[in-house]
């Protein structure tokens, strides 16, 4: 990656300049993976795209993100791998395996730092992690939840976990922590469904009244298994405010397949593409590009994946782009909303009567 990238602020570049930079960077990534990853070469060759120089972002081919669950895709040798990231899957499910070399891992950290600093400032803050230490202690499997916590931990000092091993709220620990850092800005981090199901709900059920009005909460990961319980982002924020005084709450959209170049929410509730990444929304009917405002399948682009061919991915999420360079928060680049996971289809046919056995 061009060192130039790190000179800019994450939301500094407008459409034409960002477009030009990204296309150049992605073309060079594309060539790199074509020569270093046989599987990637075969995929592009099977679409007659193995010797194309792409002229627009929309022309870049995309891999379905599930492919990283079913096949091993890497553009480095075994010796160069320093870390293997896995997605959080429920038991029995296949997990994505993402192979990182030193350069990619370092880039991810640098870029994440640029993005988060633009929200919390460049100084590290006392940090309250809304999860249990058990998630990071067991490093046999480098899960997305553990990786997220470790990734964000570098923005905090005096880190404290809000829950014990059984996911009970550690009231005493939190009180002491808040007392020790009274008057200071505090960073809270957690996964959306943990923040909701364990943190917010315990606060609402009990008489505990923490004052978090000076704190910043960053949360991500979506609703996962709790989709039936999912509440709107507005309700989520409102209830957190009532229960704890929290005002600055930022969701982020990201995935283990493109760690680092995450999409952060702004003060107006929109997710923003930083200069290192972009988003395209496609129609299911023919993968053509959807209009702004039109819900479709989300494609994510990132210039960070050097060690695996994951720079252009078709996700299994749906969303819509609100606009580009025009958000009232002042950040340039595309801004968007995620509306949920794609629904699974009910297919006709005669091959299935399987209903389990009691």
């Amino acid at each position, binding site marked *: 990656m061009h060192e130039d990238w790190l000179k800019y602020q994450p939301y500094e570049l407008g459409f034409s300049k960002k477009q030009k930079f990204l296309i150049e960077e992605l073309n060079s990534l594309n060539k790199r993976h074509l020569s270093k990853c046989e*599987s990637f070469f*075969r*995929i592009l*060759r*099977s*679409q*007659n795209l193995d010797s194309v120089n792409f002229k627009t972002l929309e022309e870049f081919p995309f*891999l*379905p993100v*599930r*492919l990283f669950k*079913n*096949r091993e895709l890497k553009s480095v040798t075994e010796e160069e791998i320093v870390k293997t990231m896995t997605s959080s899957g429920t038991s029995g499910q296949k997990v994505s395996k993402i192979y990182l070399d030193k350069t990619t891992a370092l880039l991810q950290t640098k870029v994440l730092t640029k993005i988060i600093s633009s929200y919390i400032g460049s100084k590290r803050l006392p940090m309250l992690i809304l999860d249990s230490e058990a998630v990071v202690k067991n490093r046999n499997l480098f899960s997305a939840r553990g990786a997220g916590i470790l990734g964000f931990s570098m923005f905090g000092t005096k880190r404290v976990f809000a829950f014990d091993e059984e996911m009970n709220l550690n009231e005493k620990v939190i009180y002491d922590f808040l007392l020790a850092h009274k008057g200071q800005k505090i960073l809270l981090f957690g996964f959306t469904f943990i923040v909701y199901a364990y943190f917010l709900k315990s606060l609402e059920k009990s008489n505990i009244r923490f004052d978090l009005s000076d704190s910043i909460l960053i949360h991500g990961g979506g609703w996962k298994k709790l989709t039936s319980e999912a509440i709107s982002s507005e309700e989520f924020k409102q209830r957190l405010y009532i229960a704890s005084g929290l005002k600055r709450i930022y969701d982020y959209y990201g995935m283990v397949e493109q760690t680092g170049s995450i999409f952060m929410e702004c003060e107006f509730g929109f997710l923003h593409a930083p200069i290192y990444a972009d988003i395209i929304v496609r129609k*299911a*009917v*023919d*993968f053509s590009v959807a209009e702004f405002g039109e819900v479709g*399948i989300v494609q994510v682009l990132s210039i960070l994946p050097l060690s695996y061919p994951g720079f252009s991915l*078709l996700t*299994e999420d*749906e969303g819509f782009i609100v606009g580009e360079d025009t958000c009232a928060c002042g950040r340039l680049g595309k801004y968007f909303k995620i509306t949920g996971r*794609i*629904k*699974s*289809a*009910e*297919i*006709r*046919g*005669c*091959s*299935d*009567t*399987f*209903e*389990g*056995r*009691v």
Partner: protein
Amino acid sequence: MDAVIHLKEEYKNQLELLFTTHSSWDSVYNEPVFSVYNHDVIFFLNELSKKINKHTDIRRFPDVATFAFFCRKSNLLKFQGSSLGNNQLQIGRGVTFHIAPSNVPMNFAYSLVMGLLAGNVNIVKLPSKNFDQIKLFLDVLDAFRREMKFESVFSKIILVRYNRIGFITDFFSSFCSNRVIWGGDDTISNIRKSPIMPRAYDVTFCDRYSICVLEINAILNCSNLEQLALDFYNDTYLFDQNACTSPHVIIWYGDADKLIEAKTFFWNAIRKILESKSYIVESSTVIDKLVFAHEQAIDGKLNLFENKKNNLFIADLIQLESSISISHSNCGYFNEFYYDNLLLLSAIIDSPKYQTITYYGLNPIYLKNIIFDSGLKGVDRIVPVGKASDFSTIWDGYDIVSSLSRIINII
């Protein structure tokens, strides 16, 4: 007298009795059987057919209309004529327990008709999902029964619904003379955990695959390409290419020089029909198809794949292997391959997993000869494009009516 056959109290509330004229399972077990193609059964079905056609909602459900058409007397007598056994000496065996697939609304009804034509008493497990088609069928059947005609036929129909396979399956299996199991391999092995009587047996319809053979010059000279495309659509897209009869592999045969021209000609016609039928693929299926194409590419199976629109993926294979159909996609995903010599087919279809070959522009006897000359273990049906899902009493290699009945030998 105490009931001999009874379902334990604790399971009774898990069983929904949708239709029966019996007050006990003993009475079901003791119900007499009919000879095959019994007159009453044929007249009953013919009248059922008329009543279904008169239902106000019938236009909404082409699959129910097709079933009604199937049950006409003239159609049933045609099957009787083509039956292999001696109808006069064939008679039912007892209780047939049918397990219908969960995602084809009307399949249960065809299975029931086969059981009735075989002369048996039928306990049919319906899909747990309450399809509108099934509601319509039950409406008609209930009204018909109130006419107090065909009582000996009605007493051979027991329709049930229950959720999970287990005790209730054990119960019906314990006294049936044969089981008809539709659905996938997993279902069959699951049902087979429930023991049946020594003389009872299963007639199973398992996961099977089909292919299509197109002759290049015939396609290029086709005078009614629109009809051919519609026929192909009905074989495949009508059931989201997920029926065992829907081809996943297209074999092009003939003049290699005209191959590309024929492909373009044919697939453009398919695209047109997809447009006119507004066949839409849901996002999750689109991604399934895309993942499948990428995996095929990674595994070195593809020359090229193309998806101008996501309702039609065409994958050009590097080589054809017998396993090609076993792992497959659906909702419009076709693997294609060219043969200059159809004898090469024998390496592909020599597997009991292959069910139907649909053909266009060649003599089916030639395809039959390939199977007989090489002694192949696959393919039970050779039908023109458009007829892949036409149901008949001869299906999946069985004469179903004969398979469910017994033949009396008199010397």
